[in-house]
């Protein structure tokens, strides 16, 4: 058998970021990583097609200067990430190059062919073993732990290990580097030394758990329209499609800041660098109320922005989800925000075009749907072999061409996600943020989580939410009718219905992302606020005339709205709530 690590070849063709390589010796593996030598640089590439003696590689860098005959060395390994302590707080490119370490030597620009260890080899960790000699362990099992920022990072056995191993040696509690051998295990008659990190191919899901389970618990994002109206389950999936400028990025930032989870992984995939820069500068400054540390302590940023190489963009989403699966393997609750999956799909399209594959709709490759489904299916709530639960929630944005949701990426995504948070150009033009369309959007989780919501929030929670959506729909109908027949053409009851729907929309579904209080609403506050609003929505008001009804609601709406800006323990808040209750009791008479 030929050792695959000695496989070499030479370049015979270049077309954009795809090169054709003829194998000189050795064997080739689909999706293995290879390096092209260009003068003194080695550029990373991945095999994506093998045809006879030729293979096609996508190069993860700019291909300027590559020429026919240049040498290519194959590594025999698929594109992989390093998993171990030290990931949290890092900023990586799509191939897990630590951007923070690249900058020291290279000035402002990202030069080609520079690859650094993703995890520090020098940093030391306080390791505490949790298994002893003689214990039986399986793949992906906890054998020790270290403190990583504010979180207990479990050191696990090789994830892909087959069979049951026996612990032969384990070090005692102490300070170690990730490269130090901390244990030896014997499996199938072979003794394997273990250190604190391991590689895992990004395109392969980590499945070292006992079973996947049904997600039934609410993921709290502190955005009212999401948590109350279109909730996402922990371990679930959601997509946020929207035309440009509708507020996808702001919404993603809010979720990455305020969501109640252990780890957040932000994948900036083919989007503006500026967006990431804001996170990079802001997160270290914001305190995470849960741990007292900074938000950056729980965050990993994968940053492959639009001007960075396209092939690495395709990899970046997989890099993100793999890191998430790794933390799930520690029994943690992980949120992955992928912005934007359309750019990822476009990267596939570019490569498919270069490979001269038969194009599907809008020139996307035929395998678009299965790739998208495969990605979202890597999210989920699981029970580990030790009984602990871990979750990966995946929320992806979609940037549909022309803001038209009928395009292939949006459609393929809708088939596989549990919640659809569609952003509307109309709402964003009217400055109604978050611009999630309350009529078109949906969440399948509201039914799935019914019992936990009604248990944890309020006995009648799902009923109230459903009733409020009916009011919104009815109000929108009246609104439409008014544009045709005018206000004089509708009944007073219809007008009241319309005003109620406006009240719900303006004071609850809309939320000011740039106000210190209103930007994030705890679930406890949402319950209180929603119930007070629900009283107004369901109360049977008696008005004598339309102007009287309008007057009443204008005043009431302003009070609900002003209340959003005060914290629940402030005097102003209590005063406003008192006034709202008073006017609800008097049915408006005291206000006129």
């Amino acid at each position, binding site marked *: 058998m030929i050792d695959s690590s000695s496989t070499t070849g030479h370049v015979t063709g270049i077309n954009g970021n795809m090169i054709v390589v003829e194998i000189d010796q050795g064997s080739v593996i689909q999706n293995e990583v290879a390096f092209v030598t260009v003068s003194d640089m080695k550029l990373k590439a991945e095999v994506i097609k093998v045809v006879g003696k030729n293979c096609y590689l996508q190069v993860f860098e700019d291909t300027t200067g590559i020429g026919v005959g240049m040498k290519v060395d194959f590594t025999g390994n698929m594109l992989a990430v390093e998993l171990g302590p030290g990931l949290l707080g890092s900023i990586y490119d799509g191939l897990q190059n630590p951007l923070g370490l690249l900058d020291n030597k290279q000035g402002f620009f990202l*030069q080609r062919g520079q690859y650094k260890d993703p995890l520090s080899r020098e940093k030391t960790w306080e390791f505490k073993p949790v298994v002893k000699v003689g214990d039986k362990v399986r793949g992906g099992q906890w054998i020790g732990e270290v403190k990583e920022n504010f979180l207990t990072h479990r050191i696990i056995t090789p994830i892909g290990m087959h069979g049951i191993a026996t612990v032969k040696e384990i070090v005692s509690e102490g300070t170690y580097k990730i490269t130090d051998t901390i244990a030896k295990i014997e499996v199938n008659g072979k003794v394997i030394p273990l250190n604190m990190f391991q590689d895992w191919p990004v395109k392969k899901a980590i499945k070292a758990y006992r079973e996947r389970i049904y997600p039934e618990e609410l993921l709290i994002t502190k955005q009212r329209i999401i948590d109350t109206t279109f909730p996402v389950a922990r371990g679930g999936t959601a997509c946020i499609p929207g035309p440009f400028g509708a507020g996808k990025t702001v919404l993603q930032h809010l979720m990455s800041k305020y969501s109640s989870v252990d780890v957040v992984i932000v994948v900036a995939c083919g989007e503006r660098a500026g967006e990431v820069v804001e996170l990079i500068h802001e997160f270290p400054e914001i305190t995470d109320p849960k741990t007292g540390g900074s938000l950056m302590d729980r965050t990993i940023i994968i940053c492959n922005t639009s001007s960075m190489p396209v092939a690495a963009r395709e990899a970046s989403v997989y890099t993100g989800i793999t890191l998430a699966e790794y933390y799930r393997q520690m029994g943690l609750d992980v949120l992955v925000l992928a912005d934007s999956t359309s750019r990822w799909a476009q990267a596939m399209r570019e490569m498919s075009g270069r490979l001269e594959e038969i*194009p599907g709709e809008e020139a996307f490759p035929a395998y678009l749907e299965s790739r998208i489904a495969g990605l979202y299916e890597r999210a989920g709530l699981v029970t580990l072999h030790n009984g602990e639960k871990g979750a990966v929630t995946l929320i992806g944005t979609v940037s549909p061409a022309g803001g038209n949701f009928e395009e292939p990426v949006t459609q393929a995504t809708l088939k596989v996600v549990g919640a659809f948070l569609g952003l509307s150009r109309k709402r964003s033009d009217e400055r109604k943020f978050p611009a999630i369309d309350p009529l078109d959007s949906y969440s399948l989780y509201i039914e799935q989580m019914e019992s936990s919501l009604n248990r944890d929030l309020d006995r009648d929670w799902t009923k109230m939410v459903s009733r409020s959506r009916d009011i919104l729909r009815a109000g929108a109908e009246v609104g439409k009718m008014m544009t045709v027949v005018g206000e004089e053409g509708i009944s007073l009851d219809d007008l009241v219905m319309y005003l109620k729907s406006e009240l719900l929309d303006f004071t609850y579904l809309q939320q000011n992302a740039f106000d210190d209080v209103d930007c994030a609403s705890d679930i406890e506050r949402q319950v209180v606020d929603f119930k007070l609003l629900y009283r107004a929505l369901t109360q049977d008001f008696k008005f004598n005339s339309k102007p009287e009804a309008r007057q009443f609601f204008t005043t009431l709406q302003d009070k609900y709205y002003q209340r959003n800006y005060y914290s629940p323990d402030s005097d102003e808040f209590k005063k406003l709530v008192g006034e709202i209750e008073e006017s609800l009791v008097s049915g408006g008479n005291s206000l006129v």
Partner: protein
Amino acid sequence: MFKEYTRITNIIGDIIELEAEGVTYRELASITNTNGDTSLAQVIKIEGTKVSLQVFAGAKGMSNRATVRFLGHPMKVSYSGDLLGRIFSGSGQPIDGKPPIENAKDTEIGGPSVNPIKRVVPRNFIETRIPMIDIFNPLVESQKLPIFSTPGEPYNDLLARIALQAQADIVVLGGIGLKFDEYIGFRRKFEEGGVMDRTVMFVHTAADPVVERLLVPDMALAVAEQFGIEGKRVLVLLTDMTAFADALKEISVAMEQVPSNLGYPGSLYSDLASRYEKAVDFEGAGSITVLAVTTMPGGDVTHPVPDNTGYITEGQYYLVNGMINPFGSLSRLKQLVIGKVTRKDHGPVMNAMIRLYAKALESKKKISMGFEKTETDEKYLRYADLFESRFMDLKVDITLESALDLGWKTMSECFTPFEVGIKKDIVEKYWPK
């Protein structure tokens, strides 16, 4: 040392193909036609010994016996302080009748992207004295913003006005497919406005070869980048990026690439992004702000060029009927300066005024359909008229401070404080007594 080839096998559009060895991707070649004409060309595909090149001057009149000499390096632009006040063609040749730049440093065009970690969060407000920009969608240093416009709108006038009023250290103009008159228009305005001595122009007019169009943004941005690294605050104007995208389409079709949408290549997004992403605020050095024009064919914003651009850039200004439309226009970076470097009431005023104007238009529509005018409608109509004449008219030329004051005045002339949906403490402080 450079080998010459005299056997071109194929000529397709502006692309030539020949058999050659030792060539590298994106390498530059010089071509001498049998009639003595010369042009540069760039390698865009290699298959074994078959090399495809795009000819900058176009392949019209090209003989298949023309001489091709590979130069061993990719396209470069010369950079030096002497560039200021000069005008160049799309391939970097002086077209102002002055001699070529000497002692210049050769700089790679389309170079690597800036490490995101080396960027700083934009924080400097650029006052343009155009209230639709300053109040509602302020321009921020290092922003990339296109003006979306239908053909025929005064977009180049707007661009020139911003360039004159925005007080950048250096202005770099990249003209792509400009009409000759437009080119002269920019030149005159810059000379009259006194900014020509800190301006570099790369001009490709509609009559010039298509391939040269592709080079203009890269040349302009490469030069801007060098000035930026030296600590200068550079404003880059690119007009019209739709012409640039059309050139991409022509080349990709000639290369027989599978088109994705309306004939544009699947890489359109990445191609545009790699240019716009050059906008940057360098940590400890200067900055590059990019203002571009994207004409929307048929006024259709869902056309692939404006659509992809909208996703890439940090907002857009819609120029409709000679006014910057408040709906759809957006500065994504405005939150970084509004209320932080500008007045505290800036944010609330901005939001309230737009919301009220949206409602006013609803009333207008309702009334135009023949419905009864209510008292509320009256208020809104009055507001709409004032808003259009005091703010939307492009002739208005006032500072942000006075524009905000005028905003409060306008609201108070039409509404009570309860109707504007602004936080109480702000209303109390600013509402005209």
